[in-house]
């Protein structure tokens, strides 16, 4: 009852201005990736994301890698500033937004690079799942220490410096995927596309759940910057996680749109 009222009250009565949090700890994961912890826990499903406001700079989408953390790969201005913040610095959080993963039965997580971030809460919630972790090189692998303790961890590196030598999709090709009822995938677009094609070829695409990335500005399904062809779904609101069969014939791996809405 109280809960319900809080929900109602929360839904009806609260401005959704960015919630300001203070950074408590910054953990270097790899040379270009840091996990940033803050002083507030958000109630989110694995796979949901938040919009992170770096005051004076920009606001960018980030998966929650935990209830009180994001894992940031430095790729440009906003991520560079974000990655350089120190404990005590303040950032704003809007969200969590979107639909996360819907795990059932045996779970396989497939991560490429910083795509491991939204999959980490899944590993925390479902110990024993199978986790296929890919990266360019051994030093780019995320969360391995933790994942070793709680999952059946398999590693792939592009340069062979750890685990399977090659792409994640290559590693998956030799696996029996039919035993997984849920296959959660997140990583760079082309990695996701090859996994998508592989699942399709193996006839298990309907078990695939793909966390997409598109240019996001509002996060709440209004501005249209994250919409995907051909159905016009909003990645921010209808996704970011989509069931594999919904993405068949979609723009995944073909094109996306930049900040201006131009296809590229």
């Amino acid at each position, binding site marked *: 009852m109280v809960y319900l009222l809080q929900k109602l009250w929360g839904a009806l009565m609260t401005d959704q*201005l960015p919630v*300001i949090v203070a950074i408590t700890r910054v953990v270097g994961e790899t040379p270009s990736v840091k996990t940033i912890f803050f002083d507030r826990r958000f109630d989110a499903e694995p796979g949901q994301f938040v919009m992170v*406001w770096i005051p*004076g700079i920009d606001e960018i989408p980030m998966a929650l890698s935990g209830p009180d953390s994001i894992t940031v790969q430095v790729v440009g201005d906003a991520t560079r500033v974000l990655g350089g913040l120190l404990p005590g610095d303040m950032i704003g959080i809007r969200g969590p937004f979107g639909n996360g993963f819907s795990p059932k039965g045996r779970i396989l997580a497939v991560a490429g690079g910083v795509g491991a971030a939204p999959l980490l809460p899944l590993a925390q919630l479902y110990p024993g799942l199978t986790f296929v972790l890919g990266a360019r090189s051994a030093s780019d692998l995320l969360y391995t220490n933790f994942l070793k303790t709680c999952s059946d961890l398999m590693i792939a590196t592009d340069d062979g410096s750890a685990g399977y030598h090659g792409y994640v999709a290559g590693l998956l090709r030799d696996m029996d995927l039919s035993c997984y009822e849920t296959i959660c995938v997140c990583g760079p677009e082309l990695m996701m596309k090859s996994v998508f094609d592989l699942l399709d070829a193996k006839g298990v695409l309907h078990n695939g759940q793909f966390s997409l990335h598109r240019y996001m500005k*509002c996060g709440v*399904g209004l*501005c249209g910057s994250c919409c995907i062809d051909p159905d016009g779904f909003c990645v921010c609101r209808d996704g970011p996680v989509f069931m594999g069969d919904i993405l068949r014939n979609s723009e995944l791996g073909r094109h996306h*749109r930049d900040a*201006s809405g131009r*296809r590229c």
Partner: protein
Amino acid sequence: MIQLQSGPVEVGGVTLRNHLILAAGVLGTCGSSLARMLREGAGAVVSKSIGPEPRSGHAGPCLVVLEDGVLNAMGLPNPSSDFRGELDQLKGEPVIVSIFGGNPDEFGTVASWFVDSAAAFELNVSCPHASGYGAQIGTNPDLVEACTAAVSRFHKPVWVKLTPNVTDITTVGIAAQDGGANALVAINTVKAMRISPEIRKPVLGNRFGGLSGKAIFPIAVRCVYELYGACEIPVIGCGGVSSAADVLELMMAGASAVEIGSALRGNPGLFREITGNLYGTDGISPAEIVGCAHD
């Protein structure tokens, strides 16, 4: 609540499938999302505002959701002439292309790109947060008239979308009418701001933004009422509409049709929901309702 007769609606030179139109800038950057809104029951759709050059828009945050509205400063991101490709899949559909420019020539140039694909043009002379564009034109009646005239020459219907951030919206409406507009759209967002108390800075990257949603509905009703009284061309209402009752109220104020934006947040099925309530087999003629609050 009364209900209306359903059927196609002729407004400002465009045949709508019903009285509800997707507002400019909401889910309007891709052909596919525009097509989706038509599938979801919109009577017509307005595209994102397209300008003379591609723009990435303002730095974020670009939008925050408030208790009773939405505050945004997208900054007119748009793919410019590349937007033509988005319309390929929408041939023959009621798609109004929203355009903006910094002067009449730019309006003309942008319009020229869509002469074959747009059912009509909607001129954005009303966005309150993009310097040199939008409301910076829409607060100057002479410029509004000139920009409208520059687009009218393509012999396509021209709708002019007005800003409420003026002392007297009717003078701008009349200027648009004099420039050859086929309809007026009222209103765009209301200039506004919120500040983050902890960060001690405006929450929007652009500092200033535009307020939309429920909070501005009474302002929209007022503007539509004023324009209906002062102008000869149809008025299309916009601002804070989220129910069939709101649609009727704006129509009574003088709106021939109604655009909907913010209320689609979290509810892409809203068009169907509203048409389900708005129309009935015993419905009355819309003509009986439009502007009836003036009698």
